[in-house]
């Protein structure tokens, strides 16, 4: 088994784990983190395609590598937007996407 294949399997597992979190977590922040996990796994798929496509003196196919860089930028922007949105929603007083709308403000430690 080549390292590329091994990390490809790892990517499949990352996607599965992230999907689990995305489906099950009730709070938006955890959903956003899970989305990032799936994203990482997805980028790795491009990475192993790149590694397997090593040719012409390159150690990897640069095209999917470039796509991953674009993808990482977009994923960051999405994360920042989602976090800004959920913090704003919190100020407006609705912490969960589908759970009960409000929690008391002073949870004691």
């Amino acid at each position, binding site marked *: 088994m080549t390292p590329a294949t091994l990390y490809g399997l790892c990517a499949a597992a990352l996607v599965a784990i992230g999907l689990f979190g995305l489906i099950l977590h009730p709070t938006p922040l955890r959903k956003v983190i899970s989305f990032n996990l799936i994203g990482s796994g997805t980028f790795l798929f491009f990475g192993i395609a790149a590694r397997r496509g090593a040719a012409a003196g390159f150690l990897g196919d640069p095209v999917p590598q470039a796509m991953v860089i674009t993808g990482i930028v977009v994923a960051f922007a999405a994360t920042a937007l989602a976090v800004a949105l959920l913090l704003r929603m919190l100020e407006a007083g609705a912490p969960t996407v589908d759970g009960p709308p409000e929690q008391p*403000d002073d*949870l004691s*430690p």
Partner: protein
Amino acid sequence: MAEFLFAAAAIVLVLTGLALVRMLWGPSPADRMMAAQLLGTGGGAIAILVAIASGMTAVLDIALTLALLAAFAAVALTLGEPGSKRRGGGE
């Protein structure tokens, strides 16, 4: 020599990887963040060992970036916490 350096990189990976146990056990967020810190340093060490062993000096830039941002997460962790008036109960 390259083999020795690659092996050294592998050993650093195993050693710092064990710090992951602290990330799981904690018990405090500070402990978990320290695990991240150790993994960051370890990552830098691995990168420079690989860079010199393989002759791919570009890999040194990875180590440079990791080192530059090493303290970043720790700084972020202490943001707004817990000095603010509304102290929270996490767990």
